């Protein structure tokens, strides 16, 4: 079957099996290997991408269900020559050890900062109307991204640094 998706601003016609997940399409059909396969069950967040601007687990998306949709991957938010604020901050703060979860962490953090700016509450928000970027808010809002090296404190420092830059 055939599906058309827009990845990082470029249109792609994909010829694929019905079982193909968006994660497999990105990595295997489009050679965009920045998006990682971790658990393949939506538990670890290594495959986090933006789907029409919202963060999702690419492993839990069927490519067939996303005809015409816009996808942004880690390759779409910066390059080696022009790093995004989040990428720079992760390097500066050493927000990783092995680095395998990092693309998912960064995509998730990019969406998270936007959600916060738009006033979306979280489980730890004291009231449902306003919330600020505290350490506990970050921990809660990033809980869909696991880091088996447990670099969490430095990941949160990197996100806080990038959030300051973007202000």
């Amino acid at each position, binding site marked *: 079957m055939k599906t058309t998706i827009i990845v990082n601003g470029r249109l792609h016609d994909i010829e694929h099996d019905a079982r193909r997940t968006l994660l497999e399409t990105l990595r295997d059909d489009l050679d965009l290997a920045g998006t990682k396969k971790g658990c393949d069950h939506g538990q670890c967040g290594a495959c986090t991408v933006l789907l029409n601007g919202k963060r999702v*687990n690419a492993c839990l998306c069927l490519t067939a269900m996303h005809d015409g949709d816009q996808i942004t991957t880690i390759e779409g938010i910066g390059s080696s020559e022009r790093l995004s604020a989040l990428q720079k901050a992760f390097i500066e703060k050493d927000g990783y050890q092995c680095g395998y979860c990092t693309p998912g962490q960064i995509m998730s953090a990019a969406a998270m900062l936007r959600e916060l700016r738009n006033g979306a509450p979280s489980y730890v928000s004291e009231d449902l109307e306003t919330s600020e970027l505290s350490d506990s808010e970050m921990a809660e809002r990033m*809980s869909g991204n696991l880091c088996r090296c447990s670099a969490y404190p430095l990941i949160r420092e990197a996100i806080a640094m990038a959030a300051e830059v973007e202000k």
Partner: protein
Amino acid sequence: MRNFEYHLASSFKDVTNGQIIAGGTNLLDLMKIQVMAPDALVDITRLDGLSDIQVEGKGLRIGALVTNTALANDARVKAGWPLLSRAILAGASAQIRNKATTGGNLLQRTRCPYFYDTSQSCNKRNPGDGCAAKGGAGRMLALFGTSEHCLAAHPSDMAVALTALEAEVEIYNAARETRRVRMQEFYQGPGSRPDVENVLGKDDLITAIVLPPPRSGERQIYRKVRDRASYAFALVSIAGSVAMRGETITDLRLAYGSVAPHPWTDRDVARILKNQKASNELFQRAADALVPETAPHPDTDYKRILLRRTFIATMRQLTGLSDPEGSDIARTN
């Protein structure tokens, strides 16, 4: 994953062509490990009229395809039914909530490990197969409403809130009729057929959830106890909404999560509490009525203690006996 035919539904009549998929966050997970292996999937995500939240009377009609995120963030929901926002935000991760839908949440399957493990017997997965949870490990299993054929608990947070809020499920069928079923009557206990979990017929489609008018001035809570602070299923949860006059509880609605095959309610507990002055003694007495004397599985015996303590702490918070501290409590406008 077993291969399947993919159909994109363009009208409601297409939904009879196979297993319905919307967010897919639970279904695809189960298909990958072949706990579910449908011959055909019907993608309903492009159907019109299922993605809006509309005012209906003084209540809300929430389309079945509204995402968990959109529902939790809705200004009307946050003001009138804050318990629902709190419950949704207590569940899953931001990524999952962006994809998971209102209708799909009601239909998510149990997280019993024996349901997930195809090398083990499970009456829910394979009727008549037996139940490996009996005699197995089972600290996530249910306390109430089990049968000799199934001990599994329902994992939803959102459905517990919807039950406490006395929501209704709007269902469309192949004969083009629409009916509404109260949350309390939507689910079915396991009995001898644990594979049948609700009143939906083969060709039925959930089209919306309907919230009754909000009750102003009530204090609402969704309190969830879990193994880690975030992104974990509940061991025990309680959704509650309470109206007070002075120190007297004038009205209350409570539902309990992760303790039964569906969101649990208990009329006797509500009767004990209603029109009574809030006190520790009262809550102890209500907890005696709520908590069963034995657990159906030795590994869930701890849930008896946990449910009792969570119930008392929740009631103290809701009635102002303890400081209404924490982010899980809110007051309706």
